[in-house]
């Protein structure tokens, strides 16, 4: 948000109405899309003070050209992961062997207990919950940290990228299948259709249930992506209104509104992390038991 101000400010000095609207769109989408450049801009400066062009690293995997060079979202994903590891390690170290948590340890432990008691244990039996807890906890904290990091100036929200949310949803999908097969064996596929369905409807239901497995994961991916990106787009457009309408008076309304949305975004991050983890746990737990 703060990072966008210089860009938007520079627009105000610029050209006429048609190109202003184009420029606002450019700024907004540039903020939310992945890129090979990391820029740091300061207010009232036309050129970025840091412009880091990330290296390209093309490889061929199974006949497809894949660029493994890190992008902006990869860098911020790593940064968020590093932060998460640091905080989690410090939280564990800080308390040592003491049974009484303090400070950061308390906060982290509260979240860990929330995921364990309110998500995992509500959707699965204890043994299954313990097996999938590391995944669920990591998913929850990964989403909170990478989306949380995206709220700071000059950063990017890596979890607001379809490739990232798609990968997370795919991992949940894989765990759903793994949980189904490991708990029920091959009969997992036979039990996909709920008991009590007439035989005549069985083929249709089977297809629907198979499709359902994919739509569940697809919905996971889209929901997280859309929620993570929507707030950023709306905040930028609300600020962009100042330039689209062309009057500084708009700022009186749009800046407080943007700040409100920014605070709302904090809640949305926590809610979406909860929803993603909750639904993942629910789907994995559902696969573990025949319905």
């Amino acid at each position, binding site marked *: 948000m703060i990072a966008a101000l210089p860009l938007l400010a520079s627009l105000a000095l610029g050209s006429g109405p048609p190109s202003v609207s184009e420029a606002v*769109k450019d700024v907004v989408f540039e903020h939310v899309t992945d890129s090979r450049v990391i820029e740091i801009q300061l207010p009232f400066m036309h050129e970025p003070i840091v412009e880091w062009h990330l290296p390209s690293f093309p490889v061929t995997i199974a006949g497809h050209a894949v660029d493994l060079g890190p992008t902006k979202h990869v860098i911020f994903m790593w940064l968020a992961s590093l932060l998460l590891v640091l905080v989690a390690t410090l939280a564990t170290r800080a308390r040592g062997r003491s049974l009484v948590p303090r400070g950061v340890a308390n906060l982290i432990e509260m979240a*860990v207990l929330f995921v364990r008691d309110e998500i995992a244990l509500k959707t699965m039996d204890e043994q299954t919950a313990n097996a999938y807890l590391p995944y669920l906890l990591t998913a929850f904290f990964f989403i909170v940290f990478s989306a949380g990091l995206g709220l700071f100036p000059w950063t990017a929200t890596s979890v607001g990228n379809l490739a990232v949310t798609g990968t997370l949803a795919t991992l949940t999908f894989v765990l759903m299948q793994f949980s189904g097969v490991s708990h029920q064996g091959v009969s997992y596929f036979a039990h996909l259709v709920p008991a009590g369905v007439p035989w005549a409807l069985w083929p249709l239901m089977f297809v629907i249930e198979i499709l359902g497995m994919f739509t569940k994961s697809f919905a996971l991916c889209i929901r997280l992506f859309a929620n993570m990106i929507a707030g950023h787009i709306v905040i930028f457009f609300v600020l962009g209104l100042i330039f689209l309408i062309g009057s500084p008076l708009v700022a009186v309304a749009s800046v407080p509104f943007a700040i409100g949305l920014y605070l709302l975004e904090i809640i949305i991050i926590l809610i979406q992390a909860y929803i993603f983890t909750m639904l993942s746990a629910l789907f994995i737990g559902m696969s573990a038991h025949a319905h």
Partner: protein
Amino acid sequence: MPAMIFAADIMAIQPGLVLWTVVTFVALVLLLSKVAWKPILRLVEERERTIHAALEGARQDRDEASRLLEEQRGLLAAARKESAEAVKKALADAEVARQELVQKSRKEAEELLARARAQIEEDKAQAQAQLKGVVVDLAIDVAAKMLGEHLKDPGPQRALFERYVQDLPRTGTRG
């Protein structure tokens, strides 16, 4: 339209990013589960066990305490009853002992009295016997004096006097 291009960019999925996400996320799961989740969950479970044990211990202690209190109350009541009984018994014993003592002393006193009476009777009889002797002697003396010392041999007269004295009225000599 650049906006359309950007919109398309938003929806684009870069295989490189997918790969990096998989690598990063799987590494995170492995690393965090080792350095954070497992230790935290272990401590949490340990704490839950500790709290559970403490609560259980407190409950047991409380039960034990109330059981002991009940026991103490029972013992106290028994002790009280016992001591009351002991006092009662002691009082009864003392009463019996007193009665016995009184009986005994009364008996002794009576015996003493009886003995004293017997003694007095005996002494009196003895005194009367002596007195009779003395009276006889005196009478003989008096008679001898009156008869002018002629009664040299008081032998046969003595028996006569003794018979007289014997016949003297006994009234007034008692006591």
